[in-house]
């Protein structure tokens, strides 16, 4: 087995274990930390695909930013109703069924259309290529993203009015 394959299987195992831990751990704070590990593992998978920029952004935005938000949300809302919030798992059977169905769908789709195993030829500076395509070909979605982010910001302010 090549080093790449070893890394892939190790990362996948880490991803599956940490993702399961996210949904199964009772302590909300522990679940967030497992989520952080899962998101970091995803960055590792991106690295194996030679997507260095994407991996760095994954670490920056998801493992760094989103997890911080979730941590703050927990700390701010803890004991909101007078007792510590714990994570409950009441519908494990139903959840497992849905996940199994999704997995079956994914596997059959992948098997129907075998993916290319050859590595495509990449441009020298991928980051530059990303920058160019975002600001030329995909410039409209890019600007719309700003509008979406604006809406998110206003929504957050509305729900967490500091003054009232």
């Amino acid at each position, binding site marked *: 087995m090549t080093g790449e394959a070893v890394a892939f299987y190790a990362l996948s195992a880490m991803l599956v274990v940490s993702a399961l831990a996210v949904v199964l751990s009772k302590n909300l*704070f*522990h679940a967030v*930390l497992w989520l*952080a590990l899962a998101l970091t593992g995803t960055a590792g998978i991106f690295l194996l695909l030679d997507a*260095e*920029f994407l*991996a*760095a*952004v994954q*670490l*920056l935005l998801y*493992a*760094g*930013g989103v*997890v*911080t938000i979730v*941590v*703050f949300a927990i*700390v701010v809302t803890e004991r909101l109703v007078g007792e510590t919030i714990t994570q409950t798992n009441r519908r494990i059977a139903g959840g497992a069924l849905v996940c199994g169905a999704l997995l079956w769908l994914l596997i059959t789709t992948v098997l129907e259309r075998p993916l290319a195993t050859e590595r495509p030829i990449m441009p020298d*500076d*991928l*980051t530059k290529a990303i920058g160019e395509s975002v600001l030329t070909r995909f410039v409209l979605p890019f600007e719309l993203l700003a509008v979406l982010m604006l809406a998110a910001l206003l929504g957050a302010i509305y729900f967490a009015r500091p003054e009232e």
Partner: protein
Amino acid sequence: MDLRFAVQLGIIGLTFFMLINASAVLVLAERKIMGFMQQRYGPYLVGPHGMLQPLADIVKLLFKEELRPKAADKWLFNLAPILSVAAAFTAFATVPWGAETTFFGLLDDPVSLGVADLNVGVLVIFAVTSMGVYGIVLAGWASNSKYSLLGGLRASAQMISYELSYATALAAVILLAGSLSVREVVDAQSGYWLGFIPRWYVFLQPVGFIIYVIAGVAETNRAPFDFPEAEQELVAGYNTEYSAVRFALFPQAEYINMATMSAVATDLYLGGWHGPFLEQYGLGWLWFLMKVGLILFTYIWVRWTVPRYRYDQLMNFGWKWLFPAAVINLIVTAALVLYFNA
């Protein structure tokens, strides 16, 4: 295992070892400089002129009792200092500290002095520093003590606020160099203007440099922005409940982060290892060390000169002044680059 790989491993080991030493040297330097500024000796008894004081400190802490509040989260309480230190070491991994060298003809191909040269190095430094927040917020939460939790929350809010200014200031340097690789940014700064002014980006980005340094002080939770451990209000902030070695690991991470901040400033603004004379003999890394030392001295100097601000002043300054200034600096830089390139 071929020679080249062994040499690269050696460089990684050396960097790691020097970072551990750097934290010890910085502890001593801080106390000595503080003593000097307050007209006293500082540590003087252990070894000649107190040089062995950090060693004595760590040996003492090894033999101290580890305390943990009963209500604390056992695993996370242990994990927090480990994460802090690991993030500090990892952040330095993408900072090169010397030119490529063959070690006086020992190797066929030159190896680079530094742990890793990544195509997206600047972004990785930024991403790993943002993960350094974890250790602190975890320490605060796991301790289950009011002071710790408030200290941890304050620390993380402060760090994420200043991260924006810091990253935006760095983007202006990327504009000038046109690359995210730290080594390429450094090499873009070699040579001189008019034959004697070094082509360092600090001359093109004076505002950006100042923003970066201020945000760097806030990122490392140093005075005058040391709110996470404001003694008068929070005892010791997020590490109130920590004792013995686990307590020592947080300051160590802080000192390594200081070294990383200074090294990044040196690489991106002060021309890294480029400088007159020494470079021809393959000793550019001496320039690098001198520049880093100068910035570190400034850090310590500021700490013992400027009093702590209030928390609202910190947030005000970061969000209402520093961040807009960084954005305006970036756009003006971009316009100037385009104007002079066309």
